[in-house]
């Protein structure tokens, strides 16, 4: 092997070549984070100079009806989306973890939504969900039912969860497939010799072996759920630029760039980040305890 670490003057060149990436990271990522934190303590409408507001933006948040509504929508969405995505992608992965002809076709088919443009696919779904002549309602009326307003306030949550889960199955499936394929074949063979039924093999061998993949997937899906925006916005936007199901990210965008209350928007963003952070910590704790038991 030899020593691959850069020596002497080479070190400076390393810095030079890394500079564009490092600068982007520094300004783009860390810069935004600190700017958001800073702005959240000010009142700023983008036109007049910002004035210090202390913690008033945070204190006012609980009283903000629109924010509360967006928070509730996001929590309801996550409560449905996270378990549905994890469970469905797990079973799709188990179903596709075998050597049968045409298996690659199905794996590609399930993964396709992950690499498709959310805007284009979102538009496709607006047609599927359209009240007049939409695919869903054609099926419903063909079966003798009355057309459903899929994206109205009452139903939008479920319609939106379906599209988001559909779009996320592929990514989850890949993680679970990798986990499944790292289970040694002889573990399943020993279990078969020991008399385990397929259900017992899943319960005692496969699922425990998938615990790390499952944990990773739950954390990732939760973060995605709290940040969900694209499909939801495209499906539920109204003519006046509003939404029938505003989420936290939509609320941040609306508060900042439609109401021009950057301080309030930044405070909401910080709260969202904090919530994701706390949830991830809880998962880590749970995994540690679960891991110690197993």
């Amino acid at each position, binding site marked *: 092997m030899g020593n691959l670490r850069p020596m002497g003057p080479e070190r400076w060149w390393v810095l030079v070549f890394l500079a564009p990436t490092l600068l982007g990271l520094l300004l783009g990522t860390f810069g935004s984070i600190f700017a958001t934190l800073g702005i959240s303590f000010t009142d700023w409408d983008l036109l007049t100079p910002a004035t210090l507001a202390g913690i008033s933006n945070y204190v006012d948040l609980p009283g903000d009806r629109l924010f509360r509504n967006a928070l509730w929508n996001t929590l309801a969405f996550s409560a449905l989306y996270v378990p549905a995505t994890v469970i469905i992608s797990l079973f799709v992965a188990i179903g596709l973890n075998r050597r049968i002809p045409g298996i690659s076709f199905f794996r590609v088919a399930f993964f396709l939504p992950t690499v498709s443009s959310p805007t284009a696919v979102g538009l496709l779904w607006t047609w599927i969900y359209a009240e007049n002549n939409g695919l869903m309602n054609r099926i419903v009326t063909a079966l003798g039912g009355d057309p459903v307003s899929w994206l109205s306030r009452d139903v939008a949550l479920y319609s939106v969860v379906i599209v988001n889960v559909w779009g996320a199955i592929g990514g989850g499936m890949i993680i679970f497939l990798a986990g499944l394929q790292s289970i040694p074949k*002889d573990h399943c063979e020993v279990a*078969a010799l*020991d*008399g385990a039924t397929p259900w*017992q093999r899943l319960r005692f*061998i496969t699922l425990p072996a998938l615990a790390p993949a499952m944990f990773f997937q739950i954390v990732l899906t939760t973060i995605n759920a709290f940040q969900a925006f694209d499909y939801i916005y495209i499906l539920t936007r109204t003519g006046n630029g509003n939404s029938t199901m505003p989420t936290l990210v939509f609320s941040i965008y609306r508060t900042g760039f439609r109401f021009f209350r950057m301080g309030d928007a930044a405070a909401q963003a910080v709260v969202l980040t904090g919530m994701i952070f706390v949830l991830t910590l809880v998962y880590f704790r749970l995994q540690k305890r679960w891991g110690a038991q197993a």
Partner: protein
Amino acid sequence: MTPVSIRDLVKRYGAAQVLHGVSFDVAAGEFIALVGPSGCGKSTLLRMVAGLEDITGGTVSIGGRVVNDVAPKQRDIAMVFQNYALYPHMSVAQNMGFSLRLHGADRAEIARRVAEAAEVLGLTAYLDRMPGQLSGGQRQRVAMGRAIVRQPQVFLFDEPLSNLDAALRVQMRAEIRALHDRLGTTSIFVTHDQVEAMTMADRIAVLRAGRLEQVGRPLDLYDHPANAFVAGFIGSPAMNLLPGQAAAGRVVLADGLAVATEARAEEPVIWGIRPEHLELVPEGTEGALGAEVVRVESTGTADFVSTRAGGLVLDALFTTRPALAKGQRIWLHPMAGKSHLFDAETGGRLQ
């Protein structure tokens, strides 16, 4: 105790045929070793007995019942894998008791039988450990323990010692044999190591390229190999096998060297002699072969001497520690009655 019977067993993967009609019987309570070079089909055969591979042709019977279409779990067998296949998320005790738990045994019964097996294998102190915290030898014992708590009709071993270091391998093979003597369960042990087969088995079945070459007791295979392949495979260091021409009472080898043998018709043959059956004799002894020392390897117990006799390589093994040097000229004499003759074409034994 249960006998196992293999009849005309054939295995094909598409166009590739792995087993070409193998037949042998394992008596109730017998320990049989299945030995052969890599790719000879021995593991495939074992997996067919276990039910992990489909049977293309022929039959496998366990306890007189043909099990070709019986699910693995209903064959009442336990298998020990090369990689042990311990469940990493279960403790030693949970690993060992898993099959009983699957069968709905109550906790007290599981604990009792696991404790019993742990006692036999010296694992009592490790029952609460996870597999990741054990050494290779301990994991091997847990895999054994998992097999014995079930009290199955037949044990199957798929090269269980190949992942252990040399010293541990010697120790474990004695332990496995002792365990067999104690439990008396019919066992089939697959290995590529003929020393393991020789030291552990009641009988050995030698496989080559999907065909059974010979089945017999270890010393029978050593003393009377059925063909040149078994002669070369069983015994370490390997037998010298040299092409020659049989003539009246002797075999003429290449370069005009000749060795005495029983009278035979004139025909091309393979003459075989084990290294330990060559004696060091003074120059001019009748029937001795002159050879030049090429290499000497001393283990203390014995000296392995590689020589060149004319154009032929001839290996010898001496326990008398003769002081030999590279390049030295020595005289080797085949011990009376210890040489083997095989057909040059088929490799079959001629005596």
